[in-house]
């Protein structure tokens, strides 16, 4: 696995989860793809689990806890729009929202 150039993120930053559907093992829930949230805290670096899953060398990556509003994730189906969901997303799955 080659080293990717991955942006460094900070707390409180607004980010969007990539909409990619790459082949192979991923750690990013499908229901969060393309959704915008705010970084609650930064964690890591941890080795990329998408490589660890195949037993190949894994690049250390920042791990971000991202908070999403239920309305952003589920639209009108949200039980209460301002309820929230947090998930850990690896940096290479996130893009900055300006």
């Amino acid at each position, binding site marked *: 696995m080659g080293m990717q150039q991955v942006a460094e993120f900070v707390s409180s930053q607004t980010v969007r989860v990539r909409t990619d559907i790459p082949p192979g093992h991923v*750690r990013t829930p*499908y*229901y969060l793809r393309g959704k915008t949230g705010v970084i609650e805290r930064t964690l890591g670096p941890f080795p990329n*689990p998408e490589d*660890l*899953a*195949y*037993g190949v060398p894994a690049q250390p990556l920042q791990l971000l806890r991202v908070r999403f509003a239920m309305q952003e994730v*589920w639209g009108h189906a949200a039980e209460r729009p301002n309820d929230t969901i947090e998930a850990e997303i690896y940096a290479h799955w996130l893009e900055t929202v300006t």
Partner: protein
Amino acid sequence: MGGDAAGPIPDASHDFAIWEKRVDALMVLCAERGHFTVDGLRRVLEDMPAENYDTMSYYERWIVSINQNLIEGGVYSTAELAAKMSEVAARGDTYGDATGG
């Protein structure tokens, strides 16, 4: 799985059988020794067809994943596993007989 429609949360529960606890222990010990990663365990579990979740128990799916990871990692061969499984089955009809009590 996250967000899919599904029925009520099942409230049945069970105590773990000794064979299930052994599967759990093998996962922890093999991971500690670097023979596979939790991510490898998850990969095989998530790649399983959805119907396996209805037809197999939790630790049945785990032993499948542990096995695939250990074979991929070269810990033992499929031939070694086949020979050992035949040997185990020949010991008796119950788990107790086959595992030596």
